[in-house]
């Protein structure tokens, strides 16, 4: 008697298990509705389901289609599974005889081969279409061209036609569908593999040394969009953040004009400038209009126009800047910025100088 009760209990346990499993997944999906609740402005969420640019839009629509099909497959097959497990369990009072020993059925096999093949064809065609749309899109003459070069562990941006070199914070113009001004990228790398991923603007594309990759975006709305490096590139892969400011045409032009200027010459901070030019700083960094033309590290000509330093690892405040120069390991351990071994007075002067580079 006891054994039969135990068996009965076990059988229902297993059925309940499957239902519980489904519930956990549903709960997870509900939690995932914070996908829909994210507030973009204060702390932007790089949510792939909130596209703000045409390539991301196309991928989003494809993803909805794929999710719908896989969702239906999941519901059908898992229902059959739950049903089978519930209906064909050994009951209490079973006579112990073996059930009919069925070896197979050719018709059933054919049907559940043909249907999946058709599904595969449909998904393939839908995908191939989007792939060609995105990857073979022609570049209009109004496109802004940006060359992005990945470094360990920062981003270099050049606008070759506009004569601008900057780092880590990217500005692009918003693109009006009536008069599109997309941004077309060439992606290069100076050292290891990186990947450019700002989910709301486009799918990711890698930056691979000795290879030129291309991608494009045409953001629909002004705003800030974030992402980060997605290909493991070394110790500080985690803090190679992407920050993209989509500007109105007027703001974008103003930014370009400001970036094209050589560095601000502030007579008061000559001491700091001298320190910059006579220590190792200028080996790695460039400041336009001075003798510093190093390319290993970020261009500092308009350092103060950026909200963060070290590719998003810290806010761009005098205290953080000072800490970064004195002891980069405290902010981004394993980055390639060396601790500059300056005494306090020199360090203060240097920071004051850098603060003038607006």
């Amino acid at each position, binding site marked *: 008697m006891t054994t039969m009760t135990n068996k009965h209990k076990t059988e229902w*346990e*297993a059925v309940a*298990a*499957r239902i519980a*499993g489904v519930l*956990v*997944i549903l709960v997870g999906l509900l939690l*995932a509705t914070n996908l829909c609740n994210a*507030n973009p402005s204060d*702390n932007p*969420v*790089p949510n*792939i389901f909130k596209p703000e640019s045409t390539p991301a839009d196309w*991928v989003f629509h494809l*993803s909805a289609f*794929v*999710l719908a099909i896989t969702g239906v*497959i*999941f519901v059908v*097959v*898992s229902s*059959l*599974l739950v049903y089978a497990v519930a209906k064909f*369990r050994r009951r209490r009072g079973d006579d112990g005889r073996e*059930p*009919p020993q*069925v*070896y*197979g059925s050719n018709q059933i096999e054919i049907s*559940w081969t043909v249907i*999946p093949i058709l599904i*595969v064809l449909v*998904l393939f065609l839908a*995908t*191939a279409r989007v*792939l*060609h749309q*995105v*990857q073979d899109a022609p570049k209009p003459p109004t496109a802004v061209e940006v060359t992005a070069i990945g470094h360990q562990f920062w981003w270099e941006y050049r606008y070759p036609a506009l004569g601008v070199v900057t780092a880590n914070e990217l500005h692009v113009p918003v693109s009006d569908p009536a008069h599109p001004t997309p941004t077309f990228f060439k992606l290069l790398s100076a*050292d*290891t*593999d990186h990947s450019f*991923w700002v989910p709301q603007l486009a799918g*990711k*594309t*890698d930056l*691979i040394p*000795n*290879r030129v*990759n291309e991608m494009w975006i045409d953001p629909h709305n002004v705003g800030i969009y*974030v992402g*980060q*490096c*997605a290909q*493991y590139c*070394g110790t*500080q892969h*985690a803090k190679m*953040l992407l920050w993209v400011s989509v500007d109105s045409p007027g703001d974008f032009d103003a930014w370009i004009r400001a970036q094209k200027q050589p560095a601000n010459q502030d007579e008061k901070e000559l001491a700091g400038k001298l320190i910059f030019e006579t220590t190792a700083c200028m080996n790695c960094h460039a400041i336009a209009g001075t003798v510093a033309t190093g390319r290993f590290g970020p261009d500092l000509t308009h350092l103060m126009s950026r909200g963060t330093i070290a590719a*998003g690892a810290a806010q761009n405040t005098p205290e953080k800047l000072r800490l970064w120069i004195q002891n980069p390991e405290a902010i981004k351990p394993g980055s390639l910025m060396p601790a500059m071994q300056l005494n306090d007075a020199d360090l203060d002067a240097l920071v004051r100088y850098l603060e003038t580079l607006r």
Partner: protein
Amino acid sequence: MSLDVMAIRSAEATGRPWVEVLHEWVTTVDHKRLGIMYILYALVFLVIGGVEAAIIRIQLMRPNNDFVSPQVFNRMFTMHGTTMIFFVAIPVLFGFANYLIPLMIGARDMAFPRLNAFSFWLTVLGGFVLYFSFLGGSGLYGAGNAPDIGWWAYAPLTAKAFSPGHSSDYWTIAVLVAGFGSIGTAINLIATILCMRCPGMTLGRMPLLAWLNFVMSGMILIAITPLSAAQIMLLVDRYLGSHFFDTQAGGSATLWMHFFWIFGHPEVYILILPCFAFMSEIIPVFSRKPIFGYPVMVGATVCIGFVSMSVWAHHLFSMGMSAYANSFFTITTLAVGVPTGIKIFNWLGTLWGGKIQFKVPMLFAIGFLFQFLIAGLTGVMLGSAAFASQLSLSYFVVAHFHYVIVGGILFALFAAFYYWYPKITGRMLDETLGKLHFWLFVLGFHMTFDLMHVPGLLGMPRRIYTYEPRPGWGIMNFLITIGAFIQGIAVLLFVWNLIISYFKGAKAGNDPWDAWTLEWSVSSPPPAYNFATIPTVASRRPLWDRKHPEDPDSRYE
């Protein structure tokens, strides 16, 4: 009780020195002992790999955490991946294959017993070399020891310029050596299956476990070798100054990526095929019906073996290949889902109309079916190259492949443990502990890996030691970590069950599950020679024929 167990116990009773017993095991060429050693080796590394995972999860529990430094974290995920694939999954599957295949095909040992032992010890050596790196290597920036290049070791991060010191070399040599061990075992399995079957056991009457390991071994021959070749190239690059992956000299980083994934993708099919085998043995027995569609299962397996060799670049969808190349790999990746889906349907067909017994192996099997379905569907999402451009390199992928490896492979392995432990040791594993293990693990698994898909969809990339406090990332990661610890407790319960049942478990007898394949016809554990007389078989289920002489399978096949 088998003769050699009795011998050992009586020898121990008369005070035979433990060194002698140890020597016997170390020098054995018996497939059963080698199988047990493979499994025990894998279990040790499972715990070690689990500790590495725990460290990863604690660090990621909240944004900007500082439980470990980035250098240590990068070593942890490299070692976790490398350990789990090469020193847990492969050895444990080889262990089961080694133990079971000769018994299932009516043979007395593998075709090449000494090669068997040699291959095992090569794998062991690989594991030791990898972990010796904690003492001997020095990683990026000379700051440490174990390799920190990721388990896929992309070039040019592995070049001398970016990975000075020897930690990368420990990874390369350990995996290279273990790879040769795998090739040896694969050759042995193929020779055994083709040349040692008992009379009457045509290829069409072999248990599916033999078929699946046969296809797996064929895949090993052509999939592991590209990795070995690439690793030789890497060593030559690092030490002889060659330029295979030296991008400064015109070499190609993408060439490594292709070579690695030509290995890497078939590798995961190599891991899953034996798990399909476990399901194809266990589900029929606990449904009390034969497997539905045996010939189709064989055909689907062979199909998977071939098609899976053509899908590798779906790991490279973000690399910048042309739309045509991306489309090609999309269709092959989706196509390999068809035979895989057919297998799921056939298992469903086996359950259908049966009399399902919810013993612990069956609980894990049902968990497998449900979870493998979901894993396959997220795989379909990742297979669509355009959708993958958003999903790849994020926690969505990490969730997907852990769903396959933990929700699929590990569940199937647990089922196999509960099912065959009685045969190997002569004792039953405790059912109550087993059920507790199952429930706890299901809870922890779903908590971790269901939720893990979400940060990926919210833009969280992989391989990062910390992250900004973006909405949704922190809470998800926290819950994921809790789930990981629940799984850890469940695994410890399992290990405890393995140990306690060895001494106190109920005696199993020859055939505790009323099953139908040849290994259940001998004692538990089997004698050293397996079969006193080599059996002759006339159908796929020889023991069904013996138990039901009025209605043998041989009449219908």
